[in-house]
């Protein structure tokens, strides 16, 4: 189990400062790209809760991303003034309900059957939106107006303003990271991590493990819905591709590439994958080949992902202070 050591905290703080300063130096195009990456990071971080901490490899996690996005677009399609807090609450609670139903049915299985079942549910959702003329079908659906974030009668954040939205999403990303760190440090998190290691034993120690897995699934699904909500509010446009297995697969890849079971690893993985997708096509037409090579390389030589590399580097740096006070549970 990875624990967040002091060098890691320093590393994360440096990353945060870089993200805070980026809009000042970055072009509008890259500011928008990083905004998108951060939204996707919220999505992959939530998947890490399942894959990296609960041991549930969900191949249908994009369903909740898509459901969150579609709910905002459908429910508030032609509303002129969308109240942000109200639409967020409604979207997230309904995504959570969807996660509860799908999770309740899926967690009865494990291993490959769990993967297949989550994939099947996600494809069901995909085809539902793909073939429903009412919700735009395969063309997708537009959101006419962006949500307005009001505090009293004052506008707090202007979502039309790219810089405002950038910081708004960054705040959500930090919030989600801190929230997940908190529940993983709490008694609930200890049980989850133990379930991943040895579920039978955890049951024998008196825990109803299906309940814990289900709660984890619902939390992850709701956070994925949050990411979908942010994406829909960002682009004002939702397509069925958001729910496809391709999205789910990409998310798994980002989590593994970045380092599962670390929370910050998936964020790094998302940055790497999306930035590569942005840079590589400039070099060669066959950029997907290079991309595949990089992924194979990381999986072969960095079994714990990029985060694992960062851990071993920081451990080497701080090997002197390693002896003192390393008691963590």
């Amino acid at each position: 189990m990875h624990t967040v050591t002091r060098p890691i905290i320093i590393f994360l703080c440096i990353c945060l400062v870089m993200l805070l300063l980026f809009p000042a130096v970055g072009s509008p195009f890259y500011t928008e790209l990083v905004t998108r990456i951060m939204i996707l990071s919220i999505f992959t971080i939530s998947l890490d809760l399942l894959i990296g901490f609960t041991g549930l490899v969900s191949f249908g996690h994009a369903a909740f991303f898509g459901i969150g996005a579609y709910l905002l677009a459908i429910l508030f399609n032609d509303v002129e003034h969308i109240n942000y807090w109200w639409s967020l609450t409604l979207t997230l609670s309904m995504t959570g309900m969807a996660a509860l139903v799908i999770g309740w049915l899926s967690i009865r299985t494990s291993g490959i059957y769990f993967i297949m079942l989550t994939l099947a549910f996600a494809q069901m959702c995909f085809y539902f939106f793909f073939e429903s003329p009412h919700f735009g079908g395969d063309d997708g659906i537009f959101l006419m107006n962006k949500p307005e974030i009001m505090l009293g009668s004052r506008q707090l954040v202007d979502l039309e303003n790219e810089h405002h939205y950038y910081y708004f999403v960054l705040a959500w990303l930090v919030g989600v990271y801190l929230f997940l760190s908190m529940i993983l440090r709490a008694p609930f998190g200890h049980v989850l991590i133990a379930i991943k290691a040895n579920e039978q034993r955890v049951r024998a120690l008196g825990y109803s493990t299906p309940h814990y897995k289900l709660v984890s699934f619902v939390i992850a699904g709701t956070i994925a819905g949050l990411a979908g909500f942010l994406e829909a509010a960002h682009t004002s446009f939702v397509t069925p591709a958001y729910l496809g297995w391709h999205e789910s697969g990409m998310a798994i890849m980002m989590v593994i590439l970045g380092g599962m079971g670390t929370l910050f690893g998936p964020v790094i993985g998302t940055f790497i994958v999306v930035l590569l997708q942005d840079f590589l096509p400039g070099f060669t037409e066959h950029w997907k080949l290079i991309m595949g090579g990089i992924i194979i390389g990381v999986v072969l030589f960095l079994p714990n992902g990029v985060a694992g590399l960062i851990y071993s580097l920081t451990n080497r740096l701080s090997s002197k202070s390693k002896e003192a006070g390393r008691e963590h549970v």
Partner: protein
Amino acid sequence: MSEIILKTEKLCKNFGGLKATDNISLDFERGKVHAILGPNGAGKTTLINLLSGELLPSSGRILFKGYDITDARPEKISRIGIGRSFQKTNILPGFSCLQNCWIGAQSCLMTSMRFFRPAKHLREVHRRADHALQLCGLSSKRNQIAATMSYGEQRQLEIAMMLATEPELLLLDEPLAGMGSEESQQVTELLKELAKEQTLILIEHDMDAVFSLADTITVMVDGAELETGNVDQIRNSKAVQDAYLGHDEEDAA
């Protein structure tokens, strides 16, 4: 006669045509060490798995302090105060000793569905985990990763995890399995220590350990109870010698 803590009534478990447990009716007394002996394949582990809820019986009843727990699942069984250790070491290998016991100790909470305060602030859990480690002599290894410990220490950790749940009744499935003589001496001492205050149901192949620990012994053959009695009765029983001890000496020779 003291209080009966656990009772089985005509307990049966069939796997297809095989009767792994055949009509077992036993009384387990509080505060005693009740050992279950039998040759390989006699159904000892199946019996423990029935008592701990890993398996559901085909027929019959199990009563714990008078309550019917026949259909209870493992997590329920653990919650009401029956702890078990496994024959094959069943620990969380990537975790430190303390973390392993922590999971057991945390079951003292009404529920672990608690999301806000860090778990390390829970004093009672700390106390339980430390106490379990101390009982098993692992206090000095508390931060060592379980996978890097010796086999004997892992077996001790296996018991410590169970003790961290502070059970009233302990089901021990071959705690000495695969241990060297020195290690098994250590664990026998530990079991003696536990036996002073706890109720133990013990499956074990090691005759010396069983005869030195047990108050009552049940011998099982082919899923059925052959004989139950105290150490001397079993030692001198003709039927038991024929069925088990005799074979054992032949094997040894």
